């Protein structure tokens, strides 16, 4: 077997020659030497074979490195795309959930708003009845009746039985009948005794030329509603609702608009 040629003694010259690093005269001299020196010629052939192999290897490795580099770039792009898609999906899901919750809340709100709600008699009473505020201190002072002042103070303080007691102590001579009947009636109504209140309020509403007639009619209508006299309540409150000077006109109309005064089947 032929031993391999050791290129090392020739490598500098061969490399300079092959890489075009020689001057013209050097190159000519080298070419001449190659023609005459078999060893140098064989070394050149071996060098050419070696560099040809190296070119193949360099091509192979270049492609391999380029593909690996491309692979990394594609992976990074894929990861970035996946991240974006995941973020977009998460945002979509979040907004869908938010929209869903809002829709449910809205639906619930609408249902609560529109659902048929039947009030209990007490709730309806509290909601629709506008009590008499009672006479103020100044107003009672003007009337000059100390018992009335006391009764009104007790009424305003919610002490209805006491207010009623005081009202009963007022003599007919000390206070006009319409006021006496009216305030006794409203105190009884506030106390929850609508049936008793009714008779006082009827009388108050029938006092000729009284300024309290309109107000007495409202409270009478309310007392009739409270005691279940629905047709009578309707009639009384319609009168109130038709009277533009009645301070309770709006309240009477409000109640009449409901079905609360219609007889239940």
């Amino acid at each position, binding site marked *: 077997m032929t*031993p391999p040629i050791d290129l090392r003694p020739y490598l500098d010259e061969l*490399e300079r020659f092959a890489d075009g690093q020689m001057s013209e005269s050097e190159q000519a001299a080298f070419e001449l030497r190659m023609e005459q020196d078999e060893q140098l010629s064989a070394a050149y052939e071996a060098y050419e074979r070696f560099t040809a*192999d*190296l070119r*193949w290897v*360099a091509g192979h*490795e*270049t492609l*391999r*490195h380029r593909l690996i580099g491309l692979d990394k770039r594609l992976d990074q792009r894929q990861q970035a795309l996946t991240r974006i898609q995941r973020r977009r999906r998460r945002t979509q899901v979040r907004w869908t959930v938010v929209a869903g919750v809002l829709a449910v809340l809205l639906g619930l709100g609408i249902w609560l708003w529109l659902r048929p709600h039947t009030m209990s008699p007490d709730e309806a009473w509290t909601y629709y009845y506008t009590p008499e505020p009672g006479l103020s201190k100044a107003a009672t002072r003007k009337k000059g009746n100390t018992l009335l002042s006391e009764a009104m103070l007790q009424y305003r303080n919610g002490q209805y039985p006491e207010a009623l007691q005081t009202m009963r102590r007022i003599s007919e001579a000390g206070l006009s009948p319409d006021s006496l009947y009216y305030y006794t009636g409203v105190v009884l109504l506030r106390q929850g005794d609508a049936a008793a209140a009714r008779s006082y309020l009827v009388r108050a509403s029938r006092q000729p030329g009284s300024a309290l007639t309109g107000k007495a009619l409202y409270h009478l209508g309310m007392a009739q509603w409270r005691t279940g006299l629905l047709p009578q309540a309707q009639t009384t409150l319609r009168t109130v609702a038709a009277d533009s000077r009645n301070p309770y006109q709006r309240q009477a109309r409000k109640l009449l608009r409901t079905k609360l005064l219609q007889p239940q089947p």
Partner: protein
Amino acid sequence: MFFVFVISGAVTQPLAETLTHLRVGNQTFLIKFYQENRNLFARWARRQHQLEPAAAHELLRTVLVEFYDQVADGRLTKLPPDLRAYVYGMAAQNRQTTQTETDILPAAEAGRRRRLLGLFTQLTTDCQQVLMFFYFRGYNFEKVAGKMGFANATVARLQKSGCLRRLYDLHLRTQQAASPAGS
């Protein structure tokens, strides 16, 4: 006659031109092929060989480098009409070889180059890069210096010379080890 073949149904390129480009070291064709077929190939490899995407990508790279070697060696003188089918066939063959043989048995005619490839990978990364730039890309010393960040062309020439010597020393040592009767 004008031959045209199709890569992934979109890119067309004259056959003869592709081979010529590859032979003179223009690898763009294979780079593009990899870029366009990587995901498709990974799906195929998953179905056919139960390979994870990363392993499938590596297999495709190996096959494309082997394909390039065949063209560069002159083992492949005619481009297959359906390159994708050919590459997939090579991949399937590669898988079978890997499964049945543990050692790579290079073809006799490529043995010398394969050995040199093994030695080449023992060089430093910078040396590999310099030799690839000079011997494959055909860059002059000035460009090699620019690419590698060397001070000037002379430094690049000296670096390249040193790297070539290191590779040759490795090559010589291997040759001497293979034929102890020599030297």
